[in-house]
């Protein structure tokens, strides 16, 4: 047990921090966020070919660096701080875990090397409604001949309009809840897939709607067993929550830092406003929350590490449902709270388009509801601690 970064992990953190401070500054974020794609392709290629980031948790056998979820989390926290506009989260936290957990050797060989070298971006499409549970998988999949026919619509697909690879969840018609769900991997440019970018309040991350119209897939597209995909999908969503929590922690830290710096500069009544106790106490409460979010995020990352590692500690891996719900609830509330506070602590300029707090305030809200709001995750925790489910 050593709940602190190793020297190597600290190096990864420092290099990510330094790199992102240069390439994802305020001007870069604002330039990327008004494009339809939502990110700068040239910068994305640098992240892949210079920093090898999408490869970080992909096993070496599939062209990756063979590190783990903790290292991934370290990057995500720094990306969150800088509001990096990129397809990284969807690719690394949603699609890659789906391939790692549910894919067979051939499927991993087919897709992971491309993800690792940056030539393939990917995402996960699963919910057809406004929720994040098994029953929100609405699209259908019917076995036909050697393959499957898929139909249906997906909402809230991060980077769905630009990704090269889609991981899709669909259910056997007539099935309900956790039963009958299957996962597929498919080239996103398939003619039977219609993808539409949806303009969003948070401009630093793109959402899309995806429609399948009689999409025919061969047997090799099925990840795992037909109709038995929910346990894998559930774990993928839990891992994605942990990734999101890391980004949220970074964002919350950044708005705290921005607010403290601003309060040190801004003079009123002949002194820096940072010397007023009413504001110091608010900043202290922000820091308290940020550190608690960071602890929850790191702990969950350690759990996720064991989940992705085939030789991982099973007892720790079994903590995934609670650790992920805890991290997502805590980090969501922290990020929103700190972002809202940062507007108030910046005073009037905090309300302008020119200053950055609004970018974080919008991102905080978007990521708070994505993959389940805090109350939803806490209800899951309640049902476990009250002994209503294992």
């Amino acid at each position: 047990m050593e709940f602190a970064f190793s020297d190597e992990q600290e190096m990864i953190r420092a290099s990510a921090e330094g790199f992102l401070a240069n390439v994802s500054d305020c001007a870069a974020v604002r330039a990327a966020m008004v494009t339809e794609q939502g990110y700068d392709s040239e910068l994305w290629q640098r992240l892949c070919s210079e920093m090898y980031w999408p490869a970080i948790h992909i096993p070496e056998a599939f062209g990756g660096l063979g590190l783990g979820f903790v290292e991934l989390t370290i990057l995500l926290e720094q990306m969150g701080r800088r509001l990096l506009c990129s397809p990284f989260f969807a690719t690394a936290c949603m699609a890659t875990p789906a391939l790692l957990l549910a894919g067979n050797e051939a499927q991993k060989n087919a897709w992971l090397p491309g993800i690792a070298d940056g030539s393939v971006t990917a995402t996960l499409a699963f919910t057809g409604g406004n929720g994040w549970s098994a029953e929100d998988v609405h699209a259908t999949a019917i076995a036909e001949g050697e393959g499957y026919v898929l139909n249906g619509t997906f909402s809230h697909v991060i980077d769905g309009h630009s990704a090269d690879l889609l991981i899709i969840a669909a259910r056997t018609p007539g099935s309900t809840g956790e039963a009958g769900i299957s996962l597929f991997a498919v080239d996103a440019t398939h003619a039977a897939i219609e993808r539409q970018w949806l303009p969003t309040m948070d401009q630093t991350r793109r959402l899309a709607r995806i429609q399948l119209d009689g999409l025919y897939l061969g047997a090799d597209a099925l990840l795992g067993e037909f109709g038995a995909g929910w346990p894998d999908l559930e774990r993928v969503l839990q891992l994605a929550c942990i990734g999101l929590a890391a980004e949220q922690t970074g964002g919350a830290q950044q708005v705290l830092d921005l607010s403290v710096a601003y309060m040190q500069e801004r003079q009123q009544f002949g002194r820096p406003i940072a010397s007023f106790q009413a504001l110091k106490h608010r900043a202290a409460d922000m820091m308290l929350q940020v550190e608690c979010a960071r602890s929850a995020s790191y702990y969950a990352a350690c759990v996720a590490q064991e989940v992705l590692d085939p030789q991982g500690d099973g007892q720790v891996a079994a903590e995934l449902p609670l650790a992920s719900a805890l991290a997502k609830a805590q980090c969501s509330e922290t990020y929103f709270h700190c972002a809202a506070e940062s507007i108030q602590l910046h005073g009037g300029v905090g309300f302008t388009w020119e200053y950055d707090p609004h970018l974080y305030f919008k991102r905080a809200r978007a990521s708070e509801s994505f993959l389940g709001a805090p109350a939803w995750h806490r209800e899951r925790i309640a049902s476990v601690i009250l002994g209503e489910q294992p």
Partner: protein
Amino acid sequence: MKISFSEQDERFRQEVADWLAANLCGEFEQLRFRGGPGDEHMFPEERKAWERKLASGGWTCVGWAPEHGGRGLSISQQVIFNEEYARAGGPGRMGHIGEGLAGPTIAAFGSEDQKRRFLPGIVSGTAFWCQGYSEPGAGSDLANVKTRAALDETGSNWIINGQKVWTSLAHESDWCFVIARTEPGSVGHRGLSFLLVPMDQAGITVRPIEQMTGTSEFNEVFFDNARTDAANIVGSPGEGWKIAMALLGFERGVSTLGQQMQFQNELSEIIAIAKANGAARDPILRQRLAEAWSGLRIMRYNSLRMLSGAQDGALRKEATIYKLFWSTWHANLGKLAMDVLGAGAELLEAAPYQLTRLQSLYLFSRADTLYGGSNEIQRNIIAERALGMPKEPRLRP
């Protein structure tokens, strides 16, 4: 970064559990789950005997270095010890001020002679300590200490006059560490010294404070020409503030893990009641129960981070949040306990004013956000020391 325990650690866990199962029984059975916050006044003699029993098995001062008589356990093993101790219902530690505060301070700043004289009694569970910091006029403004100490004419004894307050377990203690003003006319944090004072003497009067719980864990301590040997000063005269502040760092050490396990026992009791009385079906209470559970997990992760990062002895700035977090969490837990109990929360265990364990939690946790630096002082510390925000401008006298 890794949260799993090694096989060696798991064997150690078994060793601790086995020892506790074999020893926390018989005459000590009645102490299980007793003596925690709000219950600290119960069974003092029996709990002192339990300290000696712990010492006989080598289970006091487990984190201290072997050269100081400790067991020299790794952080992982200290975590395990505290977890198993609380799981077994180990009673609130009578020796915790000596083990957690006095001992580490003496080990860090004391002379070789002081280490030889004071550390063995703490390790063996035979010398008990209390803390003489706060005064009626020095609460949040701790540097405003008025208690005075001066060497007598022969230079062989410190003579101490003044009053301390909120001294827990003073009536059960053999020694008190006292912050006193040794430079006449000095103000603020200058001119203070850190003295070790024997409690059993005519110059010291202990008067219990009746708290809102109806019980008296805290005391006033009056020094009226109290004496201690001239050698019983830690560091040099005038270094008291520096040492007192360093001690507050030890306070956020590994002992917090034991405290968390007591919190876990309280939370488990509340959850059991919620299931039994139907409160668990209320969606808002469900949210609050989940929040309480989450907060306690986070408290654990926070301390694991602090401990893992404190190998060099220096706590990082993140450690400043610890007290504010746990005290707030605990006060909220007290309120949650009452809300889960509903109308039944009113009924006392017995007349005239015997509280149930959860009523005691509810009332006593109102002290948590005050002692050891109130929440407001904690926020100042976080803002100034961790975030680098300016201190409050001082009024000119």
